[in-house]
């Protein structure tokens, strides 16, 4: 033991000594800054768990159907109302089956296959609509905050959209554009585009307002004046000085936006104006199961868990990313 102790302390010293040559090497060849961002990101436990879960759920819905080759739409009346496997622990009479580990619904469709298929749609809608909304919100916010001439016009337009009742607006949009889009892009793609655009253009306003306020404050900072004295034109001023400094609020509204998009899609599906009825999404599975929730709580539990855990994971990732992208927190 005694002669081992110096050995282990030397071992401990080595990895600590290793990074020392790095900064010297950085003078010649710069170290990739994304490595620093990753190092900081790793220190945020919640963000790492969130990222792990997001990768898991993404693989679950993309690779899953290849491994679990059950048709989510296949009716099997004989095997209807199968309970999930864990029910066997509480109730020896429960109808469980290894063929349907999460159980089946009242028409005998396999819930796990439905969750996988529904997750594909929900995640695709959530991410695309969120990216669209954040893009629109940032664009309008930056333009309104930076160019004083556009401010009044763009912000009154934002107020106008904010004051519209969103759900009726979405319903009208669905009624008006569903058929032409279906004809142009096919039933599934047409609806997908309609829902994504619908959610995207009705949820950018909060982002725009927050970004505008931050840009207006940043514009008066001295480093912007310094860049102006160098002769930096407005577009590079925005990309180089303004946008990196409003990243935090954008990140926060992006993570919240993903959650809102998934939930709005569920609401639309619930009202029968989303995807066709044989087309599962997390939101629709959830709402379809609400009326028999007391008898079969698992049918609400699975999609509900998937939605809330995804949203939570993305929130944590956003939190960790925001810290990791801030050099002051990164401690460099």
């Amino acid at each position, binding site marked *: 033991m005694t002669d081992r102790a110096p050995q282990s302390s030397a071992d401990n010293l080595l990895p600590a000594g290793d990074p020392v040559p790095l900064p010297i090497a950085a003078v010649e060849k710069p170290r990739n800054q994304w490595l620093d961002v990753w190092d900081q990101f790793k220190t945020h436990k919640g963000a790492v768990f969130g990222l792990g879960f997001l990768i898991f759920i993404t693989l679950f819905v993309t690779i899953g159907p290849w491994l679990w080759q059950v048709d989510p739409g296949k009716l099997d009346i004989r095997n209807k109302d199968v309970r999930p496997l864990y029910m066997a622990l509480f109730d020896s009479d429960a109808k469980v089956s290894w063929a349907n580990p999460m159980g089946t619904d009242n028409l005998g469709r396999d819930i796990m296959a439905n969750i996988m298929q529904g997750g594909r749609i929900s995640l695709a809608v959530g991410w695309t609509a969120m990216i669209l909304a954040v893009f629109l919100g940032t664009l309008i916010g930056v333009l309104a905050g930076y160019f004083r001439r556009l401010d009044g016009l763009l912000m009154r337009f934002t107020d106008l959209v904010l004051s519209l009742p969103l759900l009726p607006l979405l319903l009208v949009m669905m009624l008006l554009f569903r058929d032409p889009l279906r004809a142009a892009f096919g039933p599934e793609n047409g609806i997908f585009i309609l829902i994504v655009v619908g959610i995207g253009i009705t949820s950018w306003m909060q982002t725009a307002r927050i970004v505008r306020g931050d840009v207006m404050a940043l514009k008066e900072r001295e480093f912007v004046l310094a860049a102006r004295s160098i002769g930096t034109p407005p577009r590079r001023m925005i990309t180089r000085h303004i946008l990196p400094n409003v990243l935090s609020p954008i990140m926060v509204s992006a993570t919240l936006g993903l959650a809102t998009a998934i939930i709005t899609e569920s609401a639309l599906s619930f009202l029968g104006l989303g995807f066709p009825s044989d087309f599962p999404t997390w939101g629709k599975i959830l709402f379809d199961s609400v009326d028999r929730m007391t008898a079969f709580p698992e049918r609400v539990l699975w999609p509900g868990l998937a939605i809330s855990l995804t949203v939570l994971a993305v929130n944590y990732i956003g939190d960790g990313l925001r810290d990791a992208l801030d050099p002051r927190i990164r401690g*460099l």
Partner: protein
Amino acid sequence: MLDATKKPLVSVKDLKMHFPIYAGLLRRRVGEVKAVDGVSFDVFEGETLGLVGESGCGKSTCGRAVLRLYDITSGAISIDGREIGATPQTALREMRPTMQMVFQDPQASLNPRMTVENIIKEPLDEHTKLSDAEKREKVGELMDAVGLNRKFAKRYPHAFSGGQRQRIGIARALALNPKFIVCDEPIAALDVSIQAQVVNLLEDLQEQFGLTYLFISHDLSMVRHIATRVAVMYLGKIVELAPRDGLYADPLHPYTKALLSAVPEPDPSLARSTQRIILKGDVPSPSNPPEGCNFCTRCPSVMDICKRVEPEYREVHPGRFTACHLYNDTIDTAGSTAGHEAEGHTQ
């Protein structure tokens, strides 16, 4: 001190910078803040013109307006033989490398999200077509020139002390080999030991690169150290402009006298014997300056004419400009002595 062969690098004529005030329900224009109201001066090549005055007198605005960081209300500015007073901002871009600025607050003037290398490199990105390796080399040279370790190139501004940050700001201003640098209170946010370092650095760089400075400060002793000529501003106007030694030895304008008497004297016996001129009252609002001379509300030697007629800003001795009625009627006969006597009576 004043070399007759030197030509002015920067020439400012009757520069005015008024900021509009909007008020009321309809946001109508109800007036304007006359931050800089008719300022004229020349800065000769290789010299340092100190610009002093109390807070809010328009020093910084004047410095920024000279670089056309604002769209000026009226006046003419010519830098290095080119008239830029009315040039639109987009056309000014190619002139930017000649004129640069060092800012007051080294914390606020550096983008917290950019590394030191990127901050110093920004002017090179905007105005040169060097390769990445060449830019990195140039950044290294600039960091050497201002006394920063090249190893710190990948760090962010928050990791530096105030003095180091100011050096980063100076390196950025130097990147394009400018001829003219406006130093907008570069030492005001630093503690005394660092102030000396930065001022000495500025002097060394001036020698090395042949720079011309407009040095804005409210620190009279620091201006005395660095400036070749000094301009004193009060309420948006230059009240006196003179070579350094002349101004500190024999100030003409009553405001300059009051300002200089406020400089602490390190020798206690001298300090007891010197009489401080204490001005009464506050600086009038720049949105509503008094009629006549701007200083007439606080001037210890105020006369009737001061409250009616604005004094002309003119050369009373070779190289010494002032705007004061005390020197106007006696100039062609008795020179400045009569003015001094008049001054002495009123004090």
